[in-house]
């Protein structure tokens, strides 16, 4: 037997790489954090100039706000009057705009952002959950029996969803299920996230939030269900021609075991990346849906900040959005590295 061959000498050296070391994944995360930080620094610098290029008169905006103190007003005016480089220096000392005051509401911007963050998290969480649960399953089933009846039907429907503009779908949902047209009763409220005067942490509050979130979450989920199922379907079809699935079948595994244990884990890698990247984007990207439904989240706040030319608020929101994209990018990379040993190296 060939046990004393040069190859065996080689196996000895290669085998040291056997199991993945925890240091490997740790170093990977560290590297991603550092590069994410670099992106953040760039974004912060960019953020200063971007909003100073906007047209309009912020001083006039501040004057129009009633509840702003005389001292604050004087300070803001002095800041706005200073040369750009002085303003930039002031910005560098407070890049997160921790002391920023909204030109629209006269409140500290982070209070405004904080109050609007949880509805977006609720909306985002529920729509992501719906779209992942439905989209991924539909995609797997369609791709596994490519060209079958389920595949044909689901692909037709998902393509339709994918092509539907969110705002139009939102308007239709309001028309049919919220306003009550013809035979349709008004099932769900529209506008707001909770009925006024209810504690969102009580049971009644949770029910009210759920009622208000159903329609916007559906509108938002529709396009993502379509996206996830189309991507998942394509990945499953790609995987099906892979030799290791023939191996799995030859082992005598049942078809659904081959699918669940071998095909799906490999095929889901691109979709998982996409899901996390989308979460990062949706935090800022729910603008249309939130606006159509008057859903008081960060998307609607962005719309309002732009309409009111409130550049300090815009600056804070942009920071939140870029940060969420950066953070979920890192999470996506780390999750993929945990699932795919080839990435960990």
């Amino acid at each position, binding site marked *: 037997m060939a046990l004393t061959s040069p190859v065996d000498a080689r196996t000895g050296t290669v085998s040291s790489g056997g199991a993945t070391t925890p240091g490997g994944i740790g170093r990977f995360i560290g590297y991603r954090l550092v590069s994410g930080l670099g992106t953040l620094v760039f974004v912060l610098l960019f953020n200063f100039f971007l909003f100073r290029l906007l047209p309009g008169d912020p001083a006039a905006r501040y004057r129009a706000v009633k509840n702003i103190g005389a001292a604050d007003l004087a300070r803001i005016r002095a800041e706005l009057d200073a040369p750009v480089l002085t303003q930039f220096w002031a910005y560098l000392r407070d890049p997160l705009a921790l002391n920023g005051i909204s030109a629209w509401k006269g409140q500290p911007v982070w209070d405004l952002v904080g109050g609007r963050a949880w509805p977006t998290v609720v909306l985002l969480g529920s729509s992501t959950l719906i779209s992942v649960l439905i989209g991924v399953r539909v995609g797997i089933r369609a791709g596994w029996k490519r060209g079958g009846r389920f595949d044909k039907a689901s692909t037709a429907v998902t393509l339709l969803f994918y092509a539907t503009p969110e705002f139009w779908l939102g308007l239709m949902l309001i028309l049919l299920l919220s306003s009550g047209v013809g035979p349709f009763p008004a099932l769900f409220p529209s506008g707001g996230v909770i009925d006024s005067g209810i504690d969102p942490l009580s049971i009644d509050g949770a029910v009210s939030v759920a009622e208000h979130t159903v329609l916007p979450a559906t509108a938002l989920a529709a396009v993502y269900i379509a996206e996830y199922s189309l991507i998942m379907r394509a990945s499953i079809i790609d995987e099906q021609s892979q030799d290791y699935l023939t191996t799995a*079948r030859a082992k005598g595994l049942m078809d659904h075991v081959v699918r669940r244990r071998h095909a799906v884990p490999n095929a889901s890698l691109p979709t998982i990346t996409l899901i996390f990247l989308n979460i990062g984007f949706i935090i800022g990207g729910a603008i249309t849906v939130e606006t159509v439904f008057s859903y008081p989240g960060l998307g609607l706040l962005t719309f309002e900040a732009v309409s009111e030319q409130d550049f300090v608020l815009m600056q804070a929101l942009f920071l939140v959005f870029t940060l969420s994209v950066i953070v979920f990018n890192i999470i996506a990379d780390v999750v993929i590295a945990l699932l795919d040993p*080839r990435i960990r190296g």
Partner: protein
Amino acid sequence: MAVLELRDVHLTYRTAQGPVPAVRGVDLSVDGGEVLGLAGESGCGKSSLVASVLRLQPRSATVTGQVLVGGENVQTMSWRRLRAVRWGEAAVVFQGALHSLNPIQRIGRQLVEPILLHDSAATPRTAADKVAGLLAQVGLPETHADSYPHQLSGGQKQRVMIALALTCDPQVLIADEPTTALDVMVQAQVLELLVGIARQRGMGVVIISHDLSVLATTCHRVAVMYAGRVVELGPAQELFEHARHPYVRALARAFPTIGEARSRYAPAGLPGDPPFPDRLPSGCPFHPRCADAVDECSSVDVRLRPAGPGRVAACVHVGAGVG
């Protein structure tokens, strides 16, 4: 006793352009402990034939004839029985070991899987022990059970595939081009390993290769396929050195003989290309490329005839009784 027997096996692919016959009536049998080589150019139907043994042919393929593993017809048995025969009775060392392992599962888990599936008495512990033993038998350290496929070299992966094929102690082992992706040094070792283990366990082995010289040194008998049929079958060394079929002679000449410098510089090629299975020439499918073709060859579809002790060949020049 024959552990694998093919009786008049045909395999036809349905395509948009019409039926494509990839295998056109193959009879072969392999005894326990025997190593049979199966050679032929790409497209001659070797891999289609392998697929039919575990009923792994694509849905677009129709198989007729009998594929008997341990006397049972694989093509007509129930799915339930088929799942037990797959890997339990017949296992395959697949072509292209580089992609035949799941890239995101540890080697150990992939090796344990069929043991737990087929051996109801196995526990994760006993299965892991068995895997460690198998890895050692194919010359890999036990620690490789914790490795992922991409951490192994091509030769190591091929050894893992051999270990995988042995996990359920099958009666039949089919190795589809087990050495094609490997360098020459490793090729010899892998084949030696495969044949050694099979002989020791009394399995029937089929080694598929396009390299006749490799088969001649490792197999008891060799069958050569052309255009979906076996055109010559006989004891390995004899067939390699004194082929009766002109195609087999050409194939044997196509590999330079080691130590003979002249043959390296003048490897004898074969003019033309193998025919497309859907557009076979009339008569003997080899006659357009054959140097010895006579008029008769374009009209007579010659079948296998006796060509000496233990030998058959499909050529008009091989007369019955001619040794």
